[in-house]
């Protein structure tokens, strides 16, 4: 960690002190706009017109906090007379509870937060770590560094960054994932063979993997401690299945941890097939590009080559050096990759290239713009809210959404495109119709689950306590349930589940089936979410629970807003504002005669509702 702090300090010193001030921010928004306008003029395209207040309001709610505004929120913004009200709304939303809810969904997809069956890996602590990082607006480079370098107990509250390693604990797969996640680089092919079209060889891959060699997830106590538990485990195993398994699992909650932090050496695989190395040959850690951090090797490659095939040298904390290299502002891919990602998330287009397969040199279709955004991210010191604020305040963001079609414009980086809302945003937007305060139950502090709760309790438990706990305990299934229940109690009132945002669902709450149907990521792969229609999804939208929850449920907020309104035009206006965030158009006035529930149904099923424009 010391090295990382040094890095941050150097960075801070090299950047002007006044970066956080909003004058700087608006200057940066303007620089984006200047570059975009120059390019639009250069290619001979029309400048995009700006958007009206209604369109802006809906768009910025969706992009900052992941849901449509309630009708009250919309009206409040429209009626606001402040000439600077757009900037004001952006600021307000970025600092509201909805921000962590929306961006958690994004990060959880990227970081693959998932409950994985019977491997001891429960993602509650990991999820909480991400949420806490968003709440405290932890700088992104720090976030990435903590994830790459995480070690120690999995369920220790606050140590949830370990979930990143635990989620993929096969060392080579883990490395390929990390590189894709933080550098936007695809090197997984080189894991097994030299890639025919790529510059990375299998040897390069192993040299990079050498930084984190001997890092591993161990769910059982380390060998020394294990001896203390072993005797009772044997006794219990022969006595009762339930008692044995509770013993094993509860001991694991205390001891599961990421061990090892890199030896700086790794051996080529037993079947290495190229001429530039021999099977089992020792590889010394080296980076793919850029500056090689200093490692304090205690042995040499030549010495290791004479030793047993399993020997990769003593630990020298080289994983931390890998993290330093990855998140360095000098790394040509680290900043470019996050800028490419955030641009894609906010505008819908690729600034540089595909999110998971960039190359170090690629600057995308508008290199000056990429360069500027990279500079803004660095000047923001990886403060994501600040960077997003610069984007949201640009004219480019606040201009009309383009459609990407065969006959569409050539240059598309001059503003957002028409695109489908994420699954979570659609489901959370239903919430804006069900209640006046859709973010009411977004937690504002660490939430306990059975594992973090028991971990804490277990700190005071010795071997005999674990035995007692297992013997008196209620058995395998109830063990988890009991601790989850205690954790829940500790968290206090979470409100009714049907008023939760999707992000609040944890691994004990079951998957959100409607969100899954709408394409929420199953978190198997990086960026696993999809936005495609399919028949089960459409059947749900036409015939599913929405019928009750929004269309006919008298307690739904929309219905309460409509109560007592007899004028059909007025009624229509409320429905349109609530669902589409705008006033009815003259051409739509003819629809006024339809029944209220039919109008609501049609609007909820419309493309305009599920697409951002």
């Amino acid at each position, binding site marked *: 960690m010391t090295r990382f702090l040094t890095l941050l300090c150097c960075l801070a010193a090299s950047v002007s002190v006044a970066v956080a001030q909003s004058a700087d921010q608006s200057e940066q928004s303007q620089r984006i706009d200047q570059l975009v306008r120059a390019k639009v003029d250069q290619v001979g395209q029309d400048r995009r017109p700006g958007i009206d207040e209604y369109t802006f309001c809906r768009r910025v709610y969706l992009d900052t906090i992941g849901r449509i505004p309630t009708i009250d929120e919309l009206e409040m913004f429209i009626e606001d007379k402040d000439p600077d009200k757009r900037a004001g709304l952006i600021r307000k939303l970025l600092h509201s509870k909805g921000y962590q809810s929306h961006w958690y969904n994004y990060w959880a997809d990227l970081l693959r937060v998932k409950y994985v069956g019977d491997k001891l890996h429960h993602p509650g602590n990991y999820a909480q770590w991400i949420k806490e990082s968003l709440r405290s607006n932890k700088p992104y480079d720090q976030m990435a560094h903590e994830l790459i370098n995480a070690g120690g107990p999995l369920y220790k509250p606050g140590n949830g960054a370990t979930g990143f390693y635990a989620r993929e604990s096969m060392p080579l797969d883990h490395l390929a994932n990390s590189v894709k996640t933080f550098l936007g680089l695809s090197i997984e092919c080189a894991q097994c063979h030299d890639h025919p079209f790529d510059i990375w060889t299998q040897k390069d891959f192993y040299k990079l993997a050498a930084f984190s060699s001997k890092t591993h997830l161990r769910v059982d106590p380390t060998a020394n401690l294990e001896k203390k538990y072993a005797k009772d485990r044997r006794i219990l195993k022969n*006595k009762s299945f339930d008692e044995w398994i509770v013993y094993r699992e509860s001991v694991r909650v205390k001891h599961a941890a990421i061990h090892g932090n890199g030896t700086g050496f790794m051996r080529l695989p037993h079947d290495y097939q190229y001429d530039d190395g021999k099977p089992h040959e020792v590889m010394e850690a080296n980076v793919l590009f850029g500056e090689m951090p200093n490692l304090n090797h205690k042995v040499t490659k030549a010495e290791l080559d004479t030793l047993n095939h399993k020997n990769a040298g003593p630990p020298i904390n080289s994983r931390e050096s890998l993290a330093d290299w990855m998140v360095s502002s000098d790394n040509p891919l680290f900043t470019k990759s996050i800028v490419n990602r955030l641009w894609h998330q906010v505008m819908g287009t690729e600034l540089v290239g595909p999110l998971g397969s960039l190359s170090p040199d690629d600057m995308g279709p508008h290199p000056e713009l990429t360069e500027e955004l990279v500079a803004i991210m660095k000047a923001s010191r990886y403060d994501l809210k600040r960077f997003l604020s610069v984007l949201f305040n640009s004219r480019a963001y606040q201009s009309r959404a383009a459609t990407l079609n065969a006959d569409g414009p050539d240059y598309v980086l001059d503003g957002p495109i028409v695109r489908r809302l994420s699954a979570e945003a659609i489901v959370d937007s239903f919430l804006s119709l069900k209640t006046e305060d859709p973010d009411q139950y977004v937690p504002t502090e660490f939430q306990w689950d059975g594992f973090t709760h028991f971990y804490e309790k277990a700190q005071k438990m010795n071997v005999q306590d674990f035995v007692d706990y297992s013997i008196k305990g209620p058995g395998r299934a109830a063990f988890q349930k009991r601790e989850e229940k205690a954790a829940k109690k500790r968290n206090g009132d979470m409100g009714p589940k049907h008023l939760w945002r999707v992000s609040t669902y944890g691994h004990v709450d079951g998957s959100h089936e409607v969100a899954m149907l709408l394409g929420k990521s199953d978190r198997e792969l990086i960026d696993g979410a999809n936005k495609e*229609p399919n028949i089960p999804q*459409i059947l749900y939208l036409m*015939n599913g629970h929405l019928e009750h929850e929004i269309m006919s449920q008298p307690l739904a907020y929309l219905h309460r807003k409509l109560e007592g309104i007899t004028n059909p035009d007025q009624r229509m206006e409320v429905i349109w504002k609530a669902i589409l965030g705008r006033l009815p*158009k003259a051409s739509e006035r003819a629809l006024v005669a339809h029944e209220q529930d039919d109008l609501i149904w049609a609007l909820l099923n419309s*493309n*305009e509702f599920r*697409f951002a424009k």
Partner: protein
Amino acid sequence: MNRRKFIYSVGMTGMSLPFLNANSAVTSAPKAKSVINIFLSGGLSQYDSFNLEVEQSVRGNSKIINSNVDGVRVSHYFPTLAQQMDKLLVINSMKSNQGAHPAGIYKMLTSYDPRSSVTHPELGAWISKRLTTEQDSLPNFVSIGKGSAGTAGFFPGQWAALPVKNTSAGIDFVNRNPKVTQSKFAERLGILNTLNADFAQDHSTKETRAYVDTYLGSLKFMNSKDIDAFALENESESIVRLYDKQEFSRSCMLAGRLVERGVRFVKVELGGWDYHDNIYGKLPSNASKLDKGLSSLLNHLTQKGLLESTLVVVSTEFGRKPEVNPNKGRDHHPDGFTCLMAGAGVKAGQVYGTTTKDGQTAAEDVLDVIDFNATIAWRLGIDPNYEEKSASGRPFKMANQGEARRELFA
């Protein structure tokens, strides 16, 4: 071109399929048109079901009973199937490299080890993608059972299984809310069309059009007579009486009904086999479900004349250890487990492969799960080496490196 339209799949994306010429998909005259895959998740104990030719200690509490085939003996937990062994091929030499449930299931269903860089399509998705033609009106991959899924992996979502979680409920939300009359529904659709047409004037993209098309496809699907395939209440009395009322039996009946209508791959999941303790207290009721449901299905297919063209596959992710542990259960054992096949010209009434007598490993004619899957593909007339590329351009073969074991068929 057949007048019947391809309702389901066209609706799925609104984009046309890469149509396959039926001939190019075929490498040999197909003997099977459809597959029913009964998947026993959790790990069936081979030594308490169909592999009794081991030392007595390995068989635990299972008693050997004779079947209707000389020399084929099964456990007493399967008395009904014992009278159907002339229709079944028992494979006692299955081998997997995965010993944990999620990875084992993944391997069995996709032929690949799970990796975090790619998800692989299940066999049903490969088969559906390979064999779907413009004439098909039903989806060619249906998955029946609680929590049922059938992943399309790196294929587009349209190739994922259509899930039927529960045979009484049928397909989720396929019926109009009963309070919404036909004319009210039509009125709603009218408003929706107006809104979408208006939106399309300035905001029409491939994605918005895909939604419009999928609504059309969904409406056709709701109104098509194909929905009837999922309505067990419309099944004829002569078939219904073959089955008991248990959900697994009803799932088998539905599978038969779907295959009769040409669906290529139906997966029916029956879970709960993971008996690490008290196996002899817990196994009998689950065994009885399989015993009755599968027997009824075989009768159903025979009666309809479908057994010659339907390959029935009973599979599981791995087997269980030859030792009964101190908790009277059996732990996971991927080396030498048992699967069954019936129909489509399989060598019925026979046993293929063995384990060692101590039950520790597969011995003769070892059949790896990838070869098992390759055999299924081959029997459908598909080259198991058929290759598709993932989104990142990596090539994957349908059955990994698996080779068809043709000798399983007469």
